[in-house]
């Protein structure tokens, strides 16, 4: 139930149309398309795309395997570096990662090989009737992981491969983290997140304890006592506040919370949808929110950001997606006040126009404007919930401090994914950090075992 919007009507859009609007945004390649597209790969040496992939997938190799009709081999190449290669193929902003680096962008050609779609082709079509990886001899070591998002799952899989036993504590009733609860609905359809988790667990040796939250049901010190190592992959828990009055008024809510409901529901027609909405933010969450509420039937959707388009963290591709959906992007405006109707519900938002002074600092102008809106969605960034971790763990910039081996300041405790300050907050980064943490844990445990 979406408490802050329960006074609003549900969508007017026909169920059939809704279904179409939330179907696969980038449909999979057919066999023929995959054959043609894979033939475009130049099989570069020391390939720029590999350097651009945060998870180090040997891209030219897997594409060559597709071209040689070896789909199982291609998928194995992908999964051996990125066990969540299927979701990354769907959610990675390839336009700023591998595909941006593709040499076919140059050469008067300006058309990169569609690496993401080829990756999806391989992982979707490979034979997974038996799990493609086997476990090493049992080491007798046990590792606790907190959080079953991409980072936690990737870490668990790699640890299981090395022969360790893993227990994951997950606060939610389902695994997958933001793959399950956050990614735009049209980017990942057909319950893919759960299918992928099931595939990943196929390796064996991984137990997930659902509904078990660190700080509520378990404590870090207990985990340290019970396990040989602990990996924290709790993502980012809560949304930043606007620091304005009326933030608790009906009609104001966090974009991530709305999206969680949007992803979880079996029936989109039950969601409350405002006629007009304002989304505050400039990242992919803001874009996802704006596009999805528009597709759900909101007439007017404004995405408002206090700086210019070039400063938005959402990629150009994402911004174009929003514009195509009919979202109005307003830049150089800062939220100033939430306006309420007589019943105390959101009716609009007032903005102050901003500008950059000569030192590059954001300054208010004396102009302002008001946008009518029945709902205001906050997407100005997530912060880590650290109440249960500090002061034992050092925090830096609101995130867990780790070294390049993903070790926290507490011996035997590692962390990865969005909850650390490393890299960008992307699924593929989380997978990479989970994998790297597993390698560190493995090394440290085995080295300790020698003595």
């Amino acid at each position, binding site marked *: 139930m979406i408490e802050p919007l329960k006074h609003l009507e549900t969508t007017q859009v026909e169920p059939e149309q809704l279904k179409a609007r939330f179907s696969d945004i980038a449909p999979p390649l057919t066999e023929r398309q995959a*054959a*043609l597209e894979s*033939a475009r790969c*130049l*099989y*570069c*040496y*020391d*390939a*720029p795309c590999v*350097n651009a992939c945060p998870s180090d997938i040997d891209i030219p190799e897997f594409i060559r395997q597709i*071209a040689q009709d070896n789909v199982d081999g291609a998928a194995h190449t992908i999964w051996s570096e990125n066990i969540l290669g299927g979701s990354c193929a769907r959610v990675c902003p390839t336009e700023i990662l591998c595909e941006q680096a593709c*040499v*076919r962008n*140059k*050469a008067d050609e300006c058309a990169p090989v569609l690496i993401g779609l080829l990756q999806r082709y391989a992982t979707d079509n490979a034979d997974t009737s038996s799990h493609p990886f086997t476990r090493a001899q049992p080491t007798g070591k046990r590792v606790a992981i907190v959080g079953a998002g991409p980072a936690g799952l990737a870490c668990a899989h790699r640890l299981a491969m090395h022969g360790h036993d893993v227990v994951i504590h997950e606060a939610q009733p389902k695994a997958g983290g933001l793959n399950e609860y956050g990614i735009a609905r049209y980017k990942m359809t057909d319950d893919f997140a759960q299918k992928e988790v099931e595939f990943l667990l196929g390796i064996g040796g991984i137990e997930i304890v659902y509904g078990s939250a660190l700080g509520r049901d378990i404590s870090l010190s207990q985990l340290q006592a019970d396990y040989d190592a602990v990996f924290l992959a709790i993502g980012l828990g809560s949304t930043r506040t606007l620091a304005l009055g009326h933030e608790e008024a009906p009609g104001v809510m966090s974009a991530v919370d709305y999206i969680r409901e949007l992803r979880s529901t079996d029936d989109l027609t039950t969601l409350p949808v405002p006629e007009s909405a304002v989304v505050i933010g400039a990242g992919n969450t803001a874009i996802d929110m704006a596009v999805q509420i528009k597709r759900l039937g909101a007439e007017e959707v404004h995405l408002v950001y206090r700086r210019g388009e070039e400063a938005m963290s959402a990629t150009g591709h994402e911004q174009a997606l929003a514009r195509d959906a009919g979202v109005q992007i307003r830049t150089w405006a800062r939220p100033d006040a939430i306006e309420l109707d007589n019943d105390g519900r959101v009716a609009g938002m007032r903005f102050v126009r901003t500008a950059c002074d000569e030192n590059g600092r954001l300054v208010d102008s004396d102009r302002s404007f008001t946008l009518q809106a029945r709902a205001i969605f906050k997407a100005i960034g997530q912060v880590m919930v650290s109440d249960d971790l500090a002061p034992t763990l050092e925090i830096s910039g609101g995130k867990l401090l780790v070294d390049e081996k993903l070790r926290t300041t507490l011996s035997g405790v590692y962390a990865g994914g969005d909850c650390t300050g490393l890299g960008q907050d992307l699924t593929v980064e989380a997978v990479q950090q989970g994998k790297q943490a597993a390698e560190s844990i493995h090394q440290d445990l085995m080295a300790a075992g020698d003595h």
Partner: protein
Amino acid sequence: MADLSIEFAGIKAPNPFWLASAPPTDKQYNVERAFEAGWGGVVWKTLGEDPAPVNVSSRYSAMYGPNGDVIGFNNIELITDRPLEVNLREIEDTKRNWPDRALIVSLMVPCEEESWKRIVKLVEQTGADGLELNFGCPHGMPERGMGAAVGQVPEYVEMVTRWCKQYCSMPVMVKMTPNVTDVRFPARAAFRGGADAVSLINTLNSITGLDLDRMVARPIVGSQSTHGGMCGPAVKPIALNMLAEIARDPETHGKLLCGIGGVSTWRGAAEFISLGATSVQVCTAAMLHGFRIVEGMKDGLSRWMDEKGFARIEDFRGMAVANTTDWKYLDMNYKVIASIDQDKCINCGRCHIACEDTSHQAIDKQLLADGTNLYTVKDEECVGCNLCEITCPVDDCITMVAQDTGLPYMNWTQDPRNPFRE
């Protein structure tokens, strides 16, 4: 506009693009459509003695490039499977309807004087312009003592050619099989027997690939297969070489030649003509794309001729023959070095890894501050092999630049490093 018309052993044709003896020339309907489309001539599908052979079902297979385009085409068909009398009647009709086009008839009968005598006389009565003796079919027919079984024995080639010249007054062209170790021997034999021209090549013995589930080669007939004859783009290099061998052989130099094998563009035709052919024959390209392809070939060839200032085919025919020589006459003092145009380089690294793993290590890879690689040629290590230029996916990015060594022409026979110097 360049004049594409030719005269071939007295046979006039409006252009040098002829259809090779094959299914597209197996009946009047097709041949007339080909003439309507603009082909300068055809060689009618090979006639034999009645009863006509019977073909099997499933007949072709192919070798594909990465984009699914056909690189090599393979067939196990025999000569025409229609009665002789029907073909002869249609040939007569067609020639009457299209007097300005070259109409040559391909023949293959058992290696007996009577058989050849009978059939050449029948063909002569149709009004056809000339004969092509099919001594090349590599599959099926040789098992019956015909086709390549004749073409591989120079004495037979000479004998049969002589019979044909003796019993008719038409020009006779002998079609060579490439399934020999040295094509000059049957070519010399053909001319000794009185041939007016040789045409080459017929198809190459081949197996294009296997069905690995059924463990049988393609094309599949039931649960079996047999080797076929391959043609198409893949055989062009073989055909060009064989043509050049005959063109520069002192015994056959200057003889009339017809180029066949993998011609699918105007450029391919220009290559055959530059190596001495007066006309070219096309089969695979027309089979795969239809007769309409001749339009682009004619247009391309004549534009290229205009650009080069060639008014007639004869103006450039054979121009590349003199430049095709034995290895021992190549200039040992000639030197080229690879040069990479950094503005065009897309950083794919293919040149580097090719040279690195192919023994020369002449292309350096250097990581720049922006994370990209800079590839540069180490001039002193480069042997000028062309490998990097070949593997580079960007047009004109790597060029081979001739160096001024200041040294005169010196071939291997003159080279002091040659232990067997004459």
